[in-house]
Every structure is written in C-alpha cells, then in structure tokens.
C-alpha cells in the first residue's frame, strides 16, 4: 500500500469502500516507522497495541454506517498531550517515567471518533525551542535533509506527517511551535484561536498562549482534525463556550489579502521571499486584492513574548518539585530536594526560561517587565484588529529561513528565538494562523520546504480554512 499518497480524506473513502482495512492501514504505517524512524527519530514511543486497536475498528467497520470522519485514521500525538495510561515525558528527564492519569480533552474527542494513536512524538523539552534540539531524548531529523532540524517545538509531529509515519498529528503552538516545523517539514499546520481548543491535558507551558492544533498533508485534512478537537470544555475555563466551527467554501475572487510590510524586511531569506511573492501573485491572478498593511508593533512582539512566556513558564513549572510525581533527587533538607531535583531534571533552555521568568516577576521588576510586556500585547492585538477591518486575511512567510543545520543556532539563545519572528505576534494576539507548503528553496544541494502563513481574525477559522483551501489549489507544493 503506497502510504505516501494517503490523506485523511482518501483513507476515509478507501475504508468505507472496503479498498483496505484499518489493520492493513495501521500495519503499513507501522512498517514505515520501523523502517524509517530510526533515522528520523520522530517518535519517542510507538504503541504496540495499535494493531489490536485496528482489529477492533475493523470489526466496527463491518456493522456500522455513518462512521465519524476520523474513524480508523492513524495519528501521532506530541508527547506533551496526555493519553491515560501512556507515558507523557514532555521531552524532559523530569517526567521520563511519568504515566498520564487522564486523557486530554482532545484525546477523548479523537477516541470518540475512533482514531488510532500510533505513538507519542518528540519535542523540545516542555515545548521550549524551535528545533527539537532541546529534547532530553535526542533530536529529530528533518525528513527532507538529515543534517537539518525539523523545527520545533513540535518537530516530531511535523516530521512524522512529512515522512509518512502518520496520516496526521497533533502538536502545540505557543509562539510558532506548530507552524514553524510545519513550514520547515513541508506540511500543513494550524494554530487555532486561543480558546478554540481545550488545553485540558496539555502539559502547560505558557497558559495564556498555548494551543493544541493539527498537522496534516492537506488543508482539508487539517480542517477535519480541527473540527474534531475544537469546542467548549468544562475542564478549561479559557475554552470558548459557544464556538462551533462550520466549514465554508471559499473563493479568492474579491478577497483582500493584507501583506504586512514588516514581515518582508531584513532577515528574510531571499529565496523564501521569492516563493512567497510567487504565491501572492498567484492569489492575485485568482482574483484576490493584495494590500500592503502595517503591523507597527511587530518589532516588539519577540521581546514581549520573551518576557510573557518565561514568566508564565516559571509559574507553570514550579509544580515539578520531585514531591508528587516525576524525578525526585532526595536530599536532607526539603529546599535541597526541590533544588537538586529541578537541577537534574530540567535542561538548559528550560532552566534559562524559568530563571528569566522568575527575575521578570520578582519584586521590583514586575512592572518594568511583565506589565510592560502585557501592555505591548494589547497594542499588538490592536494592530491586528485594525488590520482586519480592511483585509480578509493576512499573508506572509511562516519563517525567515528554511530548515537550518543542527547546532547552527544552539550557542546563542537569541539566534534561536529569531526563528519565530513571524509567528509569535499571532499567539500574543490570540488569533488563528495556518502554515501551508509554498514550494522548495535550494540550499547546498538540498531541496528544503518553505511555508506560507495565512492569519485570520479571532475565531475566524471558517473563513481562514475556506481561503487556505483555495490557495492550496493554486500554489505548487511538491
């Protein structure tokens, strides 16, 4: 079975027409993983009972009609999303042997549709990073070039879909952690509106920014997964109470596309720029009106992000103290138990961000840093709100460069942070954005994917997907 051509859509068709069984499907993906994942390391754990699950689905296939859209679909799940009874490491030594005691709401929703979980994927530790090099369990390689990173923090999920080790995957995005690896691996990735998808069961990094979202081969597939995982949840007070997503058709004729001039300034790789401009031209040829806009506070997004996120991280990771779960380094005194457990359990980037956040929130600095950053956040939100008064969608490159080499940016934290320059403002504003493949650039003999980012207004996923599906038809992706 040629799984490289499979999408959720054609799998669903194939299963219902009895062209293949769920067991054959899952077998094929598992064979691909056994053969190819040792070189890629997309997965931290592959579930051995997936074939048994597949068998159960096949029994149901005999008797039922009207199966849910994701029935029998093999998916990979980022290892910061909890599945009851399975290990959840968050890519960290401090949770190396931790077993989740409940299902994340998104997992419950996917289980209700009959999804098959193939395993848990690799990530930067506690979702902190843009390359998956910060995983405590080794990096993931970009399927397009083994010397290069897949992006991060959801590098494992992006690579799994790109390498055909899953039909779709879930990741999480706090500053670009779905969109950036999607762009670097040549797949589709969506960060939903903050509050569109429940965070219950997502190991928290920055609670005011985190969102779970899908990776898929096509925009339509991503939409199908989004529809399954979105919606209200009593366990997440920040999940919108009345949001329900409806697919709508799109047409590029007559829509206005905002092109932020700040996203095409210095730092953007010339070849990536050319690919994006080609994509925009095609949109224009299809009837869209391109309109240069300004997001004047763009330059403040990254600095604001690197105050807000570490601050929230310092609070969210205080629970990892060796007492109730996870690694414990026992010492004579309680304080030392905390201090040595955390020193042994956390990697460098995690420690860096906890320290930064502790400092920013400490007495005397809270107003100067955290409050100031939250004010900038209001200004950034207003930039987008103003823009969406005149445009239907905002478009630009997802990342400033294609995939970089391992260790290229690990010496300087700031160099690594700059990978998220076009993605972080979207999280700060809480609005949805999708990255879709826009073609390939060539670097040192390697063909590397680049991503086009489309940004929508708050809870505007219907319109965003409608437009993205039309764009997908006209830009070459392979």
């Amino acid at each position, binding site marked *: 079975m040629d799984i490289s051509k499979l999408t959720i859509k054609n799998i669903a068709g194939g299963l219902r027409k009895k062209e293949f069984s769920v067991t054959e499907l899952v077998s094929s993906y598992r064979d691909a993983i056994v053969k190819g994942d040792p070189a890629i390391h997309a997965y931290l754990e592959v579930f051995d009972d997936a074939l048994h699950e597949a068998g159960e689905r096949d029994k149901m296939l005999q008797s039922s009609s009207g199966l849910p859209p994701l029935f029998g679909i093999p998916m990979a799940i980022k290892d910061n999303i909890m599945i009851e009874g399975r290990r959840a490491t968050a890519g960290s030594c401090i949770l190396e042997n931790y077993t989740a005691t*409940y299902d994340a709401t998104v997992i419950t929703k996917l289980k209700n549709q009959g999804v098959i979980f193939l395993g848990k994927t690799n990530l930067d530790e506690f979702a902190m990073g843009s390359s998956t090099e910060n995983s405590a369990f080794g990096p993931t390689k970009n399927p397009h070039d083994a010397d290069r990173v897949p992006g991060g923090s959801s590098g494992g999920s992006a690579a799994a879909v790109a390498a055909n080790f899953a039909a779709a995957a879930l990741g999480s995005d706090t500053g670009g952690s779905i969109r950036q690896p999607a762009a670097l691996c040549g797949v589709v990735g969506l960060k939903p509106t903050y509050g569109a998808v429940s965070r219950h069961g997502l190991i928290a990094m920055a609670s005011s920014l985190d969102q779970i979202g899908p990776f898929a081969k096509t925009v339509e597939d991503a939409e199908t997964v989004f529809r399954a995982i979105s919606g209200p949840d009593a366990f997440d007070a920040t999940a919108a109470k009345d949001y329900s997503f409806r697919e709508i058709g799109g047409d590029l004729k007559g829509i206005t596309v905002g092109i932020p001039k700040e996203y095409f300034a210095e730092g953007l790789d010339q070849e990536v720029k050319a690919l994006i401009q080609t994509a925009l031209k095609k949109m224009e040829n299809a009837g869209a009106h391109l309109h240069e806009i300004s997001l004047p*506070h763009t330059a*403040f997004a990254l600095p604001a992000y690197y*105050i807000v996120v570490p601050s929230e991280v310092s609070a969210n990771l205080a629970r990892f103290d060796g007492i109730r779960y996870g690694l414990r380094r026992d010492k004579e005194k309680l304080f030392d138990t905390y201090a040595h457990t*955390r020193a042994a359990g956390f990697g460098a980037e995690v420690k860096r961000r906890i320290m930064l956040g502790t400092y920013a929130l400490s007495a005397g600095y809270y107003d100067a840093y955290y409050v100031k950053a939250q004010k900038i956040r209001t200004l950034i939100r207003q930039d987008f709100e103003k823009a969406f008064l005149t445009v239907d969608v905002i478009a630009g490159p997802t990342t400033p460069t294609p995939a970089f080499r391992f260790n290229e940016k690990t010496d300087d934290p700031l160099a690594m942070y700059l990978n998220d320059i076009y993605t972080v403002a979207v999280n700060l504003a809480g609005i949805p954005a999708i990255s879709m493949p826009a073609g390939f650039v060539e670097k040192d003999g390697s063909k590397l994917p680049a991503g086009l980012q489309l940004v929508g207004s708050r809870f505007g996923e219907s319109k965003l997907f409608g437009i993205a599906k039309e764009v997908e038809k006209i830009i070459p992706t392979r």
Partner: protein
Amino acid sequence: MSISKKDVEHIAKLARIEIGEKEKERFAVELSSILGFVEKLNEADTADIKPAAGGTLLENEMRPDEAVDAALDGKQVEILAAVPERKDSWVKVRSVFE
C-alpha cells in the same frame, strides 16, 4: 540590564534550582543578553494602554461550587503510583519546618 553572578544566585534560589559555579557564569551572560534584547520594549509608548489580562477575553468564568468527581473516580491508584516516596496514601517529604 546586566545580570551578575550574585543576581543569578538570588534568582536560582527563588526558582529552587541548584546551579553550579560554571553554570552561574554562563547564565549571567545569557540572561544579560536576553534582557538586553527585551530592553527594546522601553521604546514603545504604552502610556494609556491597559495590560492584556491573559489570552482570553472571557471574564469571571464560574461554575457551581459542587464536587465533580467523575473524572477522578478510581484514579487514586494511578495517581499514587506516580508518587516517588509514599506510605499508603501519604506522600513522604522532608521536614517542612526546620
């Protein structure tokens, strides 16, 4: 804003993370560099701007003050299984008071 080794020691104490001598020097350099970068925020005029209150626009999301046990029913065994050191259903810790 420059972070000294002494600052790093103070922050590490607040953050409850044991840091070695070499690490302290490295963190001082890295944190200073990042804080230098975020100084950029001071260039923004935020005079009459209200700080954002988190990521949601929802306010005062309440529910009735009733126990909702269903989700945790029967989970005690699993939850206790994760405890590094325990006696029955008690979590063992070092003395809280010195």
